C-alpha cells in the first residue's frame, strides 16, 4: 500500500481525475473532500461491503412462489383530511 503524508488543506490526485483532499481533523476523525467524475462511484468501505453482502444474499437462481405482502396503509396526508 502506498502511504503518503498530507496536512489539512493538502490533496492527492489519482489518475489525473480524482482529487482527495484532507479538509480538516476533528479529534480522531479525518474529513475528506473527494472530487471524482460522476462515472466513478465513491462509497464508505463498510457501507459498501454490507450492501454488497446483502445483494449477494438476495440473489436467486429460481422464482419460488411468493408470500403475500401485508401492505401498510399510506399515512393520512393533510390534504386528505376534511
Amino acid at each position, binding site marked *: 500500500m502506498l502511504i503518503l503524508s498530507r496536512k489539512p488543506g493538502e490533496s492527492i490526485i489519482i489518475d489525473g481525475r480524482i482529487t482527495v483532499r484532507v479538509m480538516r481533523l476533528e479529534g480522531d476523525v479525518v474529513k475528506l473532500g473527494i472530487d471524482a467524475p*460522476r462515472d466513478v462511484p465513491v462509497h464508505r468501505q463498510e457501507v459498501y461491503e454490507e*450492501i454488497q453482502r446483502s*445483494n*449477494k444474499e*438476495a440473489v436467486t437462481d429460481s*422464482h419460488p412462489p411468493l408470500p403475500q*405482502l401485508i*401492505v401498510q396503509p399510506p*399515512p393520512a396526508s393533510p390534504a386528505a383530511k376534511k
Partner: protein
Amino acid sequence: MNTETLLEPPTQTLDDRAIIHLPFGLLGFEQVKSYILLAAPNEKPFMWMQMMDAPRKSFLIVSPFLVMPEYQLDIPERDVEFLDLTEPTDALVFNICTLRGPGNATINLKAPLVINRYTLICKQVIPDNASQYALNHPLLVT
C-alpha cells in the same frame, strides 16, 4: 433531493417487462448492467429483476412505500445528477428483498434502487439518511 413527494405507490408504474440499465451495476454485481423487470399479476406488488445475460439470476424487489409508508430517502446530489432527475416524481424506487424461508422475508431499506422512469437508468443509491434504515427490515408476509 428530498423525495417526500414520492409517497404515492400508485405512481410506481412500469411496463410488465421493462428493461432497466444500471451503468454501475449493483454493489457486488458491478459487471451486470442490464436487467429485465418481470411483473406477474399473481405476484404483485413484488417484481423480479432478472439479469438479461447469463447467469440470469434474479432479485426480488418491491416498492418500499408499501412496506413503510413514511419511508423517505435523501438521494445524494451526485446521484440526482447521474440519474438526471429534475423532479422527485421522475424517480421510481424499489428495494431488494430476501426470502429467508416460510413467512420470513426482509427488505434492504438502506440501499434503494432508484430508476429514472423516462430513461430507465437505474442506480443502487445509498441515501444520505441511510443510517436510519435497516439492511434487513422484516417484511410482513403471510
